[in-house]
């Protein structure tokens, strides 16, 4: 192994790290997850199976992963950033070849005992890789064209693979979190303007390549009443469920839209709707407030961190989390087209939960090692 003291002079012991670990943040995540458990318990008409119990186990497992990840030295994460990215990329590519379909899209990989969604791993890997890359560039170097080639490839190779699956939601998330890291790293404004224009120009091309169901989602988003029993059904029923919840909701386990199955996918993508129906405006706003605290904490971690890798990584985790929350809630409220994005910590789903807790582990690692200063030059590190 390598000697960490070579870089910092003063090293933290495991006890120090456990002391530095922000347990309050883990408690916050637990509270949010508990709202999810409650909803999953309600979906099953007051049963812990099939969903709530499994989700709890996953959360506990995820919390364990988070602690372990947080305790690992940040510089080690920096070292494994590229190898991890490579592994993730291979897995994503493997899905196209040997993956199997679930819910109409080819996203799953069967590893014998468990089934995983490699695109979830890629979401974390891409943050690590980009943070690692930008850590080594000065502000001036960031905006040089030749230095953009590598990070753009880092983003668009996996995005291309994910789009093929097809998994539009993940592709958008990967792209957006990558772009945000470019932005935070200090890429000159002109590139964003240029990029914006390029995207506008590309829309017709992208539109032409979309699957019918994806186009329909856009159509129905624009006019949900167009086909109330067909494609617009999800959005319409979701809005009815939310709206009928009113201020305090219909009461726990008393949501008619959810329990009579008018609401689709209510244990996964539409769980926020169910929460809004049963617990009302107050319940929904409470969850959003908890999410805001998570975001504020992660921002403060990024601001406090004294190394660029940590800052970018913390911001990346934060922004990915934000987009999950925003896209999911905006979708169920009818502000965005229906895209398959789960509500973090609340929606039922194993891989999403575990990869999210892994990401929070990285965030916490940044927090614990916030005072660590890491040389920019790779040679000094490598």
């Amino acid at each position, binding site marked *: 192994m390598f000697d960490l003291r070579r870089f910092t002079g003063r090293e933290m012991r495991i006890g120090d790290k456990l002391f530095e670990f922000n347990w309050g943040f883990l408690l916050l995540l637990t509270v949010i997850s508990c709202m999810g458990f409650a909803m999953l318990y309600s979906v099953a008409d007051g049963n812990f199976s099939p969903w709530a119990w499994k989700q709890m186990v996953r959360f506990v497992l995820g919390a364990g992963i988070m602690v372990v990840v947080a305790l690992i030295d940040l510089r080690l994460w920096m070292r494994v950033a590229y190898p991890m990215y490579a592994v993730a990329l291979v897995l994503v590519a493997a899905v196209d070849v040997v993956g199997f379909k679930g819910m109409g899209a080819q996203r799953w990989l069967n590893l014998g005992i468990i089934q995983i969604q490699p695109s979830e791993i890629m979401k974390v890997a891409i943050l690590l890789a980009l943070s690692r890359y930008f850590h080594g560039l*000065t*502000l*001036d170097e960031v905006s040089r064209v030749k230095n953009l080639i590598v990070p753009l490839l880092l983003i668009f190779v996996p995005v291309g693979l994910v789009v093929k699956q097809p998994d539009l939601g993940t592709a958008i998330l990967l792209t957006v979190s990558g772009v*945000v890291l470019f*932005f*935070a*790293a*200090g890429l000159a404004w002109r590139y964003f303007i240029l990029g914006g224009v390029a995207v506008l120009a590309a829309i017709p091309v992208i539109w032409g390549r979309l699957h019918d169901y994806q186009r329909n989602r856009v159509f129905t988003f624009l006019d949900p009443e167009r086909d109330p029993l067909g494609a617009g059904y999800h959005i319409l*029923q979701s*809005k*009815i*469920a*939310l*709206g*009928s*919840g*009113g*201020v305090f909701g219909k009461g726990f386990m008393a949501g*008619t*839209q959810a329990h*009579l*199955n*008018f609401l689709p996918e209510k244990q996964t993508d539409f769980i926020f709707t169910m929460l*809004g129906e049963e617990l*009302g*405006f107050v319940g*929904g*706003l409470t969850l*959003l407030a908890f999410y*805001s605290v998570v*975001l504020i904490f992660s*921002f403060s971690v*990024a*601001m406090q961190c004294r190394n*660029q890798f940590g*800052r*970018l990584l913390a*911001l990346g985790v934060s*922004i990915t989390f*934000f987009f999950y929350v*925003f896209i999911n*809630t*905006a979708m169920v*409220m*009818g*502000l965005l087209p229906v895209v398959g994005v789960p509500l973090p910590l609340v929606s039922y789903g194993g891989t999403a939960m575990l990869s999210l807790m892994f990401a929070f582990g990285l965030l916490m690692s940044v927090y614990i090692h916030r005072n660590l*200063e890491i*040389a*920019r030059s790779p040679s*000094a590190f490598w």
Partner: protein
Amino acid sequence: MQVDGRDNSRYKTFTRRMMVLGGGQAVAFVVLAGRMYYLQILKTDEYQMLAEENRINVRLLAPLRGRIVDRYGTVLASNRQNYRAVLVAEQTPDIADTLGKLSRIVPITPFDRKKIMRDLARSPRFMPVTVAEDLTWDQFAQLNINEPDLAGVQPDVGETRQYPYAMELAHVVGYVGPVADKEMDAADDEQPLLKLPGFRIGKSGIEKTYDMQLRGTAGASHVEVNAYGRVIRELSKDPGKPGDEVVLTLDMGIQQFACDRLKEESASAVVMDIHSGEVLSFVSTPAFDPNEFNMGLSQDQWNMLVQNPYKPLTNKALAGLYPPGSTFKTMTAIAALESGVDPSHTVHCNGKYALGNHLFHCWRKEGHGSMDMHNGLKNSCDVYFYDVAKRIGIDAIEKVAKRFGLGETYNLEIPGEKAGIVPSREWKRAVTGIGWQQGETLITGIGQGFLLTTPLQLAVMASRLANGGYAVKPRLTRAVGGELLPVPQAPKMDVDPEHLKIVQGGMNGVSNEPGGTAYKSRITEVGMELAGKTGSAQVRRISMAERDSGVRKNDTLEWRLRDHALFICFAPVAEPRFAMSLVIEHGGSGAGAAAPAARDIMLEVEKRSLARPQAYMPRHDVEEG
């Protein structure tokens, strides 16, 4: 510490851009909260309503159809339990296969199958559709046992219309049947009942006329359904209101008796209360079985009914048109009296009457001798009435005939009344373009020629002759929905009671004086005697050659060429209460065929009127027995 000189600027940029991102996220959260406020607080009423509409389904419950009873409360139409099988499409994986299995228990014809498929196509998939009705108890039990094998088929008990006196009342009560497609299209949202599978509506007779009242008010069951339309639980149930009870003026005892008496014939009879106009019996034979109409008729059964020469589908009592024959001589007599002909005016009958170079014959070839009005009526002498008809002219006859109710309809409660014809100068010019001939006055005077009347009209005529000159009209309903219908006061007619007495006396002679044409068919019970008038309406032309060689007797002719036999009467003679008309199509002669039947029926009417003191009090609340 290894501080990069440029890290500071990197950090500054990072911090600045963090602020931008943080601001963006804050805005995004405000937007989300705003949207939630909009949906959950501003628009919550609207969405709550939509959620309720989603959740709550209203299912109609067919109300019990109202009963129809006679004046004494005898049930003429009611409902009975009907064991049936219904099919719910969404619970059936393969409808054809399920029907195949079902047909092993209950036969399903290809015709039934087509109808089932049509019903299934036009109802929602969760709505039960009737696939087999009127199962026997054995079939129903088998269905219950085999239910697990017949996915989506459910045993069910419904209500079906039942007519205990099917044949006797087919033409009055009518029948119910399934809603036809065009009635379905015409139905507005006010009548959602029509869309209930298996719902029956009145198709003819009283069932049709009082359909709305008999139907009742639909109940509704509010059920909570899930997204697939399956019922989770019943929230509330409104059983609806059963249909109104309709009480008819008929006396089923008389109706039954009259039908039995006339069942071999193609005949009709109407018995009326001469003061109130209440119809006690309204017979048209032969009839059909309305229970079969309710269940749906096969093509063969239908063809049999249509091709039967006795026309069982026609309600002859109000739609059968017959020349009134000699029964009309009562009208000619009234017209003669009003035109100043003295009742003692005498005409000599030698069997024929010459007008110009045309000879008019009396039914009695050898003649009646000297005839005054009384004897003219009693013997039904044609020559006497040729003479007075010629004296008074067609206009006087027409006026009287119309005053006594011929040539018009009475808005009877059942549809199909025919007005018939009372000819006049204007009528003939309008119809044929040719002017009135005096010969036509003569034959109108004996009830032949253009004259056409229905048995109902003849009963009305007899009533008005008997009741002292009141323009009574026939009615068939006493009460609807527990309320007695008002009995309209019959207006006094412009007729001299003395004239009526003279004609009544003539009719008394017909029945009760030896030599009267219906003397053989008199009532011998003291105080129950009837007074009548026979009629034999000729339906063929008798040639000169036939007259020379002797007119053929009716029983030597084929059925459709024989004379119609008619009889009108009222009773009791001393204080008349009832009037009747009776027509036997091609029955031969009024005296030979119609009068004996009428006598039997009238006697029964009188006997029952003595035995039956109390009429049925209509009820508001009718529970089914």
